[in-house]
């Protein structure tokens, strides 16, 4: 608030800084890995400093949008395409989140990715991702947002498939892109629909028109279309199943792309169009809220049974995104952003913690870990902070943001509040289950470097130059990895404290039209009490299950019948989608049928025409058989046909000339 307003050019510089590092790394630093990493960190560092300035500016403006005109890109008739920046409370916060986490993740990666043969490529892709994500959150038009949305999808594809030699990674990358594209089908329809009805892509203008100028059916189609896109990106049921597989990518990627930023883009999209969502029929918002709530609890149950620590975090991410989506459906604009904001930090922290753990043990399988508390005190402490924050333990960041969502649910829909509270219990349960399995008890030996599980880090870095970890004793990760862990612990602890002052709510509400600003901080004791009880109950349950050990848990399993098995198989969604729909219905069903018809009906019909022509040709020519002859005969037929037409024509002309 001491600084002057940020000029527009400086905000563009935030966007172009990572583009520059992408181009420089690709063009000049391909063979100088260390410099590639340093240059990327420096560029994103510059972007981060400018992002702080931008945040300061929007705080100074109470979150209202800066008055910057858009720039002309191209025109085609009445289709005027412009590029501009919308800097307001919402995008200012997002720019800050993206640059902060990106910077820390790049630093972390210099340790985690050390020695990988694709080190410069990694930083190039990460730069491109950061640029695309920044372009997405800054966009002033829906089209500009969509373009970056797709580019974010591209970089996610490239990063999940970073170790493309591994079939699992290659398959996961493809799956992520296609499943999200499925959602983008809805997004594109929304895009085409809104332009057809309004002739504009400007976000502010669409939000304005939604208020009174658009019919309920258009709004329904538009909002549901956008939501389909959001559901793909933010991994909402039934498009959620790509995200756990995306964990095939390097862990730093999971820590930014698949937890903190890209997957939050769907939530951001709905928030960007919050006035339009509010204007849509109530049923539309109910659909959003219930899909969010269902996703939240559905994913949480899978988190409870997963044994791969990264997958636990992936389910947790899906579940927490469901929370945010539910908040949007309930009209909880501030609550959704606030949770997005705090979640970004503690989830990034948790993923980096998981990466740190696997750095030592060569595995992500929790049953192979255990007892890491002593050897890895910093990782342990930060992981507990992140987990407690996620579980909603007072007064950590997650407590405040989760509480606001639950409060919105309490006020609008008691059933969803109940679901949300159950999710809070499950969240605490699976996170502390993970902590107990990973850090307590005896070390189970991890995985040997060469036979690491499919997720193992050391087998990823197949060209590893530096392999000082592995068989030897457990060890804490290098400082380059610990620094980001510690740095992320600060927001995971403190960032919730901005809630009671109402400052955050006012800042992000500045992005809304005045009539939609109605946030005021409010605490409902019963909501706080139940959610805290749920969190503590979850932690207690995790401890009880862990210390009671296997006999008891097998008793529990037995009592639940087939349910645990169904959950462990992820409710068979993968099977239904991949084997049932894609492989069965599409590939072996429709596509196969179409290919057969194409070959045996359509092409055959044509060949039959050819054969008949050839027969005619043979009769006409009385010559030996052969393909070239049929060419000639068709030519003759053609000429005959044309001649016939000419005759008809001449006849017609004659008729006219000489009546």
């Amino acid at each position, binding site marked *: 608030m001491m600084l002057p307003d940020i000029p527009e050019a400086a905000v563009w510089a935030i966007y172009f800084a990572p583009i520059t590092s992408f181009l420089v790394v690709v063009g000049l630093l391909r063979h100088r890995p260390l410099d590639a990493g340093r240059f990327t960190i420096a560029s994103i560092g510059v972007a981060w400093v400018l992002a702080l300035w931008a945040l300061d500016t929007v705080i100074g403006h109470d979150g209202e949008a800066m008055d910057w005109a858009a720039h002309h*890109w*191209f*025109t*085609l008739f009445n*289709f005027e395409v412009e590029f501009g920046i919308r800097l307001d409370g919402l995008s200012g916060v997002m720019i800050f989140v993206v640059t902060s986490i990106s910077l820390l993740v790049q630093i972390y990666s210099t340790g985690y990715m050390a020695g990988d043969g694709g080190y410069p490529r990694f930083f190039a892709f990460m730069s491109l991702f950061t640029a695309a994500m920044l372009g997405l959150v800054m966009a002033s038009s829906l089209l500009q947002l969509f*373009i*970056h949305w*797709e*580019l974010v999808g*591209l970089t996610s*594809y490239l990063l999940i498939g970073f170790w*493309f*030699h*591994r*079939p699992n*990674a*290659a*398959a996961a*990358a*493809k799956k992520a*892109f*296609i499943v999200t*594209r*499925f959602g*983008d*089908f809805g997004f*594109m*329809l929304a*895009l*085409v*629909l809104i332009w*057809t009805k309004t002739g504009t892509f400007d976000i502010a203008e669409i939000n304005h028109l939604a208020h009174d100028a658009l019919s309920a059916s258009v709004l329904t189609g538009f909002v549901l279309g956008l939501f389909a896109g959001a559901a793909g990106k933010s991994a909402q049921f039934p498009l959620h199943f790509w995200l756990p597989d995306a964990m095939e990518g390097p862990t730093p990627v999971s820590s930014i792309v698949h937890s903190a930023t890209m997957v939050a883009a769907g939530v951001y999209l709905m928030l960007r169009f919050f006035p339009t969502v509010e204007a849509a029929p109530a049923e539309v918002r109910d659909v959003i809220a219930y899909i969010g709530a269902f996703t939240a609890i559905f994913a949480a149950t899978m988190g409870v049974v997963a044994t791969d620590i990264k997958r636990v975090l992936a389910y947790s991410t899906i579940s927490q995104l469901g929370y945010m989506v539910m908040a949007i459906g309930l009209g909880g604009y501030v609550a959704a952003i606030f949770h997005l904001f705090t979640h970004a930090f503690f989830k990034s922290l948790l993923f980096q913690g998981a990466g740190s753990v696997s750095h030592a043990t060569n595995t992500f399988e929790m049953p192979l870990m255990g007892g890491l508390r002593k050897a890895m005190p910093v990782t342990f402490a930060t992981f507990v902070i992140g987990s407690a924050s996620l579980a909603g333990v007072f007064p950590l960041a997650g407590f405040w943001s989760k509480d606001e969502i639950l409060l919105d649910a309490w006020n609008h829909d008691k059933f969803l509040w109940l679901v949300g509270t159950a999710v809070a219990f499950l969240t605490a349960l699976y996170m502390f289950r993970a902590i107990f399995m990973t850090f307590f008890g005896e070390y189970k030996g991890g995985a040997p470097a060469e036979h690491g599980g499919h997720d193992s880090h050391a087998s990823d870095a197949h060209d590893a130059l530096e392999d000082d970890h592995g068989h030897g004793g457990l060890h804490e990760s290098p400082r380059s990895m610990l620094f980001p862990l510690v740095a992320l612990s600060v927001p995971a602890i403190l960032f919730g404290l901005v809630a009671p002052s109402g400052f955050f709510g006012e800042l992000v509400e500045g992005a809304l039209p005045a009539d939609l600003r109605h946030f005021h901080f409010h605490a409902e004791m019963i909501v706080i009490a139940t959610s805290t009880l749920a969190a503590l109950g979850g932690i207690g349950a995790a401890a009880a299950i862990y210390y009671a050990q296997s006999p008891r848990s097998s008793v529990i399993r037995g009592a639940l019948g087939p349910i645990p098995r169904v959950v462990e198989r992820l409710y068979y969604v993968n099977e239904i989608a991949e084997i049932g729909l894609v492989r069965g219905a*599409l*590939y072996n069903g429709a*596509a*196969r049928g*179409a290919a057969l018809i*194409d070959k045996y009906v*359509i092409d055959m019909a*044509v060949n039959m025409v*050819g054969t008949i*022509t050839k027969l005619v040709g043979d009769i006409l020519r009385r010559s030996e058989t052969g*393909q*070239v002859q*049929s*060419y000639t005969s*068709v*030519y003759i*037929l*053609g*000429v005959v*046909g*044309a001649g016939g*037409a*000419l005759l*008809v*024509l001449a*006849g*017609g*002309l004659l008729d006219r000339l000489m009546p």
Partner: protein
Amino acid sequence: MLTTFLLLPLGGAVLAAFLPHDRERDARWIALTFALAAFAVSIVMFIRFDTGVEGYQFVDSFDWIKAGDFNVRYVVGVDGLSAPLVLLLGLLSVVSVLVSWNIDVKPKQYFAWLLLLEAAVAGVFISLDLIQFFLFWELELIPMFLLISQWGSGRRLYSATKFLIYTLAGSALMLAGFLVLGFEAGTFDIARLTANPPTEAVVPMAAVFWAIMLAFLVKLPVFPVHTWLPDAHTDAPTAVSVMLAGVLLKMGGYGILRIAVPLMPEQAVEFQTVLATIAGFSVIWGAIITLRQTDLKRLVAYSSVSHMGYVLLGVSAMGSMGFAGAALQMFTHGTITGLLFVMVGLVYERTHTREIARMSGLMHRVPILGIGMVIAGLASLGLPGMSGFVAELTTFLGSFEAHPTATIFAIFGVVLSAGYILWMIQRVFHGPATEEWKHLKDASEWWEFAAVGALVIAIIGIGIYPAILTDVVEAGVAPIAAIVEAVS
């Protein structure tokens, strides 16, 4: 200027054909020189093209056949619709010569035919007279037939013949249609016909419309007259595939926008729903069959059926945005599919197989080819930042209001295209490297880099700055849209 563009490849063809036998390898240098010269002319033409001027530009003409009232004239010219296609032809012809650099079977004949092909297609794009248009349209068949049947692979004679029969069947009807139109109006001059199109004829105008349309729809091609395309592509040499997918298919779309729609606007408007239905169906049909393909080249070929459906969809909207989308899609598809075929050709040259199932992990051995294929693939699936996106989006924006259902189908085609492209990349380039392909050598020749680089620059350049094309295209389709709007 346009006559120069037409004569350069023709001259090169003659020169190449008459090379002494012991120097026949030099044919490629002749071909490259003349193709480059023609490309340079097309660039100058494109830069000097004035979007503010109505009507045709760079017009050359003289009377050719005088027969009483009917003058058959040589007349060439371009407008905003044909100018981008002339530029595309110039570019792809250079690329075709480059990717033929290693042809050693009868090289002088090969390059002579290739240049003749360029000249014939050029004639189609710049002719402003129906009879002249038809002659060039037919002329293109001879080099195509010979190139596929002589220098192709597999069932090349079958495929070449099939290509020929299809086109001839269509063009016989087209000629009949042209004659009806021309005699009815008393002229074959396209500009004059466009200004005063005949509204009735000795046969129902609807019959004339469909006679002419059929030839163009076969060429495009769309369902159900598309089955010649995969065969022709699969068995053609790489350069011919590039020309076929890149510019020959555009003759169909160009013909629709240049002749069928402006000369018979009432019929075009009347049958727009039929066209939209064919288009939407074609997009989906082409895409799901592409999913099943096991041959790399056939896969790309079938994807063209799907992508050319967008052109017809844009046309069927019968409005300025849809036409613009169709015109953009023709240019961008030319560059993108051109690049896909170049990459497939370069891979095939090394592996001597196109069986997708036999390949794996090629990214390890031939990373440059892999990156080229990934760029081409991403462009093909409509990734923003590359040329295809703008064209597809414009088409959808143009067609949604008139034909929402067909547009929704077409948009779903975009999802499917991501499926077949990424799955292909996963199977061919990703995964573990196998012993079998250990010996493969990555791109290293200058002509490989030149061919791939030129197309990548075109794809990304237009993707980032579409205004290069959009202004010209707008000038080109606006008068056609005005004609259509006047009757609807």
